């Protein structure tokens, strides 16, 4: 019923507006089209100035409203992040200057050169000098931006430094699984045909001795060490996912059949970040940034940045995945620590299908 009312209401408004429009055109014929057009042109001309003023005020207002809301990810938590923020700022200044200039000119020229009924347009059809100027200046600006950009790009995509912490992270519908090398410092082989949901969720090859001490965390938690480079080895089990680390300004796809990598150095521990953001519950979050299906929006994992000592203590408490599964066949395998949200989604997915 309310739907019908809405339709009627909208139709009515349209009709009223149309009648207003029709009558204004009648008035135009009565007053003389030209005079009416000139009058309207003047009003719309001034409205260009109003529009520009609203635009600028809106931008400032929006900025002031948004900045406090952006606190959780405002401070970059990695060395690359600091670099990114610098680059973002440079690009913002360059584009911001062009933005203000060209937007101002668009609205100002529209207002300034509005037809008054007496004005005559100047015949000015080309100038090679002007074209040269505004080809060269953007070219130079782009050269600077490309140079800064490529420097950062080649640094972030260079091979990870030796001695970097290594963690594997695997995406699947719809949660993350992380793997740590264990005492031998090596991640053992995995192959998708070895996967079983019970005790080998990422398909480790138990014949490879290196897998025996690997630690698998089923909720995908990443535990990084402050000021120590970390290399993420990224894999996907089913469809394409993406490891998005907004606080660290990093992102990399997880592609089935392909192993991707990225590395960076975390610089702020979770505890310090709690103080910086003033939020005692602050956690770093890992988000899936590539459309992966129905539960895409819930593919969340927590990232912890801690000191070496804290990390070592945590590591000591972990047992190898092998010892929980095939290494301990007497005990029923259990799914530990999986996120409730993800579990729930899988269940609903099954029901729907």
């Amino acid at each position, binding site marked *: 019923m309310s739907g019908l009312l809405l339709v009627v209401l909208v139709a009515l408004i*349209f009709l009223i*507006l*149309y009648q207003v*429009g*029709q009558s204004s055109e009648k008035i135009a014929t009565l007053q003389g089209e030209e005079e009416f057009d000139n009058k309207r042109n003047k009003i719309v001309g001034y409205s*260009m100035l109003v529009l520009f003023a609203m635009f600028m005020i*809106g*931008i400032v207002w*929006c900025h002031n409203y948004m900045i406090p*809301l952006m606190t*959780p*990810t405002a401070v970059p938590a990695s060395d690359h992040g600091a670099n990114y923020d610098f680059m973002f700022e440079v*690009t913002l200044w*360059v584009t911001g200057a*062009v*933005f203000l200039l060209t937007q101002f000119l*668009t609205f100002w020229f529209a207002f300034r*050169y509005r*037809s008054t009924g007496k004005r*005559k*347009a*100047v015949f000015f*059809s*080309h100038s090679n000098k002007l074209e040269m100027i*505004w080809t060269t200046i*953007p070219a130079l600006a782009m050269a600077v931006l*490309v140079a800064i*950009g*490529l420097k950062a790009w*080649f640094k*972030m995509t*260079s091979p990870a430094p030796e001695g970097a912490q290594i963690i594997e992270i695997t995406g699947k*519908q719809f949660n993350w699984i992380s793997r740590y090398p264990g005492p031998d410092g090596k991640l053992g082989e995995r192959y*998708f045909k070895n996967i079983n949901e019970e005790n080998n969720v990422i398909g480790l090859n138990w014949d490879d001795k290196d897998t025996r001490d690997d630690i698998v965390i089923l909720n995908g938690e990443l535990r990084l060490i402050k000021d120590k480079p970390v290399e993420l080895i990224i894999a996907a*089990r*089913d*469809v*394409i996912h993406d490891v*998005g680390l*907004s*606080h660290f*300004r990093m*992102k990399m*796809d997880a*592609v*089935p059949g*392909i192993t991707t990598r990225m590395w960076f150095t975390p610089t702020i521990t979770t505890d310090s970040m709690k103080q910086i953001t003033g939020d005692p*519950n602050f*956690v770093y*979050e890992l*988000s*899936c*940034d590539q*459309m992966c*299906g*129905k*539960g*895409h*929006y819930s593919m969340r994992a927590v990232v912890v940045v801690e000191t070496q000592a804290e990390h070592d203590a945590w590591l000591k408490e972990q047992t190898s995945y092998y010892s929980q599964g095939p290494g301990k066949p007497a005990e029923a395998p259990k799914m530990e620590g999986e996120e409730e949200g993800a579990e729930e989604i899988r269940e609903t997915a099954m029901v*729907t299908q």
Partner: protein
Amino acid sequence: MSNETQHSVDTHEEHGANIHTSGGHDHGHDHHHEEHEQHFFLKYVFSMDHKIISRQFLITGMFWAIAGGLMSVFFRLQLGFPEDTFQVLSTFLGDWAKGGKMDPEIYYGLVTIHGTVLVFFVLTGGLSGTFSNFLIPLQIGARDMASPFMNMLSYWFFAVASVIMFASLFVHTGPASGGWTTYPPLSAMKEASMGSGVGMDLWLTSMALFIVSSLLGGLNYIVTVLNMRTKGMSMKRLPLTIWAFLFTAVLGVLSFPVLLSAAVLLIFDRHMGTSFYLSEIFIAGQAMPNVGGSAILYQHLFWFLGHPEVYIIMLPAMGIASEVLATHARKPIFGYFAMVISILGITVLAFLVWAHHMFVTGMSPFLGGIFVLLTLLIAIPSAVKVFNWLTTIWKGNIKFTNPMLFALGFVSLFISGGLTGIFLGNSALDIHLHDTYFVVAHFHIVMGISAFFGMFAGVYHWFPKMYGRMMNKTLGYIHFFVTFIGAYVIFWPMHYEGVAGMPRRYYDFSSWQSFSQFGDLNKMISIAAIIVFFAQLLFVFNYFVSIWRGKKLTEKTSNPWGSTTLEWTTPVKPGHGNWEGDIPEVHRWAYDFRENPYDGSDFIMQDVPIDPTKEDEEH
């Protein structure tokens, strides 16, 4: 066409309106009579008149714009009010929104179809299909397209593609739901998502037919522009609209086949057990047999069209804006030659930048570097165009008609959306911004709204030629102000959300500590989106009412904007064949906006001969 042939056509045409455009002079009978007798179906449905076909494209495009817009209203309700339920959702979506709360599956389905139809059906079919069809013959001085039959087929392939896409909304597993880019493996396996079932097959079939439509149209446009210009219409006298349509068609013809091959390989992977895109997948409790394929291969093929597609959308809008700005500022377009060169530059570069959509796929960093360089190069021709538009209105005599306002809005939006492309094209910045709301804001402003503004400018400008009547101006002003302000209100704050890292294609943000604080903002955006949607309905209302009720043009007001181009030399309502007598001969370029030595007006039409004794000369 050589002058000689042209001459023979001209002589022949003295016999009356010849609707045949090619080889018509071989058999010289009069078609005037035949035209009047044409059956309704032949005249309005299976028409071969480019003007009717263009209206078919436009109205089909409008249907899809409303459908796609309504979808965005629905998913904006979910994004703005994730806690609430809406009666309207269960009315429209039925079991997909039991109790008025939409299911994630249909949320993703709507997002996917919204993107697909807006990009392809509205801003390619509706924009290029409408204006290339309408303006190419009229502005170059031809009686119709090179192949009117192929042109008709082009529309009907589009219509069938539309029907299939629309039908996919009603299958029980829902429409395709992997995003408009439909990346495999998600789109390749029905186990991966409900939308990857029958809905995906229909999506692929529909797209394949759409590509056929686009190729038939594009080839026709190219051949027509190159071969069928009237006497005196040299390439350097072409209006910029025609240059834009020509390069748009070149882009489409060279890149759409690649998408077709991507789609065909995807069909093979889905149904014939091939592994082009699939490798080492464990899904639904089973390891799939496929090994050796590459999911990234699809992305390369997709974006090889996908990026030129952006310019397939932008170039016609740029061409229309150039024409409208010059006409309504009563000033020649500034830097005509530079404009043509920059369109050419954009066309060439459009093929060399596709992998900037793939910086986060783990591609070779060296390759990434090359794509950064080539991508940022596009900023140069784009900047040249903006400065030329600004100089065009500088010291003009600006008439704020409906089309002019939309053309000015186009420039503003193109600047805003273009500049954020400089962030995204730079890989080191893109890594963080990729797939966030920053991208959503960027492409909606630059190739969504600004292309729409180009399209609106075109509709308001050429409506009088299409129907011999004017659209209602007051409704046009309301449409402009609501849409322009609304567009910025919707998309400007999204940049901030993106900078904060908020991912796109999320159904709900409430469980995220980093992104849930934008709830109020998302509400505001949703409300603005709904208002803007209704403003578009007002435009559609205005369009249809004006077809029958708009102010009629008379012989005297048959060129209402004082344009210089050939379409305004036709009768108020041109029949099939466009000109009743001879096709006019062209004597000057398309932008002779200066004091007319013959009648004292402020423009000289292209078909006015040059009389050197009157201080008139070719520009």
